């Protein structure tokens, strides 16, 4: 494994299998009365979140705590960042406090990479701008493999604002790496022009794709970007690209409905559809903790030179 996890390009197909297999063991830990193991006792993990996030930060915090690591949460508001400290100075401060790993969320693409140039510990990208969100992609891969038994050959549609979605990028790279067949669907204004080079298909017609899917992955409509007029109205978006009850009925019976959250019910996904049994959105959240435990364990659990026997 690479020292850092900045992008899905940092992990090989073998690494993905190892991460998911290890996560399986952490899922078992999550079912125990005492959901904690001493694997990372004495290590310090810093959650360095400079963009609003609840679920990813809580998920990483729980993951690190269940591994017995010490966790420090460092967010933008009410800290030195709000007082105008630069990213570099904040990073050097965390470094000086002995952070073994820094989990960073930032609104600027590439900031995790920048961070690796200043700190000695491991850097995990928890979402950077419109670039990547590899831990989300890995938990989605885990969920698909768990529910459908394989990744190779799966037919997956990723629907919505692909252009601004770090989730869509990471997930596409991950799925293509594992041999799945990916179709990006959305209004032409929201499909990145370089998408064909990712090894994926592009479609503007959701109805022709839905009946042949194993997974229908809905992206959140980022309402904060609505004013930029990428599409005429939320209502029209829902009618043309939303996963409505009628469209969900066209999905094959075993197909999964997934969403990275937080959902806009009634926009990209109808409320009834989000509550269907094949919608595994809550499982994605549960699996996220196990996958992040697996990543922290695999990154922080190695790195030594000596060998002990047993």
């Amino acid at each position, binding site marked *: 494994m690479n020292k850092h996890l900045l992008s899905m390009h940092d992990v090989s197909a073998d690494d993905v299998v190892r991460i998911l297999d290890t996560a399986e063991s952490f899922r078992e830990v999550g079912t125990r009365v005492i959901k904690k193991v001493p694997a*990372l006792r004495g290590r310090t993990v810093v959650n360095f979140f400079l963009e609003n996030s609840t679920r990813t930060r809580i998920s990483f915090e729980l993951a690190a705590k269940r591994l017995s690591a010490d966790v420090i949460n460092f967010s933008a508001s009410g800290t030195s960042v709000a007082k105008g400290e630069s990213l570099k100075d904040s990073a050097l401060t965390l470094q000086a406090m002995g952070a073994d790993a820094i989990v960073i969320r930032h609104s600027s693409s590439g900031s995790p990479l920048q961070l690796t140039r200043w700190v000695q510990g491991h850097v995990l990208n928890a979402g950077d701008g419109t670039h990547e969100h590899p831990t989300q992609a890995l938990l989605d891969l885990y969920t698909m493999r768990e529910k459908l038994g394989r990744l190779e050959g799966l037919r997956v549609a990723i629907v919505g604002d692909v252009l601004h979605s770090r989730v869509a990028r990471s997930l596409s790279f991950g799925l293509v790496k594992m041999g799945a067949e990916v179709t990006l669907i959305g209004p032409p204004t929201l499909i990145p022009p370089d998408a064909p080079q990712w090894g994926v298909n592009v479609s503007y017609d959701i109805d022709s794709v839905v009946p042949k899917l194993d997974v229908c992955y809905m992206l959140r409509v980022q309402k904060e970007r609505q004013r930029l007029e990428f599409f005429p109205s939320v209502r029209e978006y829902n009618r043309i690209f939303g996963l409505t009850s009628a469209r969900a009925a066209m999905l094959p019976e075993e197909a999964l409905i997934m969403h990275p959250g937080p959902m806009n019910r009634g926009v990209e996904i109808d409320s009834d559809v989000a509550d269907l049994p094949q919608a595994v959105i809550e499982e994605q959240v549960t699996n996220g903790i196990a996958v992040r435990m697996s990543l922290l364990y695999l990154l922080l659990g190695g790195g030594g030179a000596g060998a002990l026997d047993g």
Partner: protein
Amino acid sequence: MRRALTRIAHEIIERDKGATDVVLVGIANRGDHLARRLATEIQRIEGTEIRVGVLDITFYRDDIGLKAEAPEVHETRIPFDISGTTVVLVDDVLFTGRTIRAAMDALMDLGRPRRIQLAVLVDRGHRELPIRADFVGKNVPTRRADDVRVLVTELDGDDAVVVEEAP
């Protein structure tokens, strides 16, 4: 190996008075197969059903972060409550005792057994912790640098104890 396991099965029944509240917990990756065979033997002799679990001790190891790669993780599956039971830990080779220390810590996080006993197929000496086995298949004198491996049919296609002497 079969005779050694049969003898251990008899010893467990004798020591634990019919083995009525005994559960076997094998340590992955070989001990779990030995535990299953021990359970079959005890059932054959006593006619009582013995519950078997498998325990992975990786997250409790004392050398995490010392090797280049994080140690490989195996499955833990103990589908019953171990509280109040006599847990017989089963492992293939007893060496430094560090694995058993980790296994006992792991068990304590899963419940409160009434007592924990240890059964091993091979005791090769060189303990680094104050740990001893209650049931031993065979004592094998070795040098510290030797390599001792137990092969089981389920994983290796054959039952054998292999001692590779250090050069």
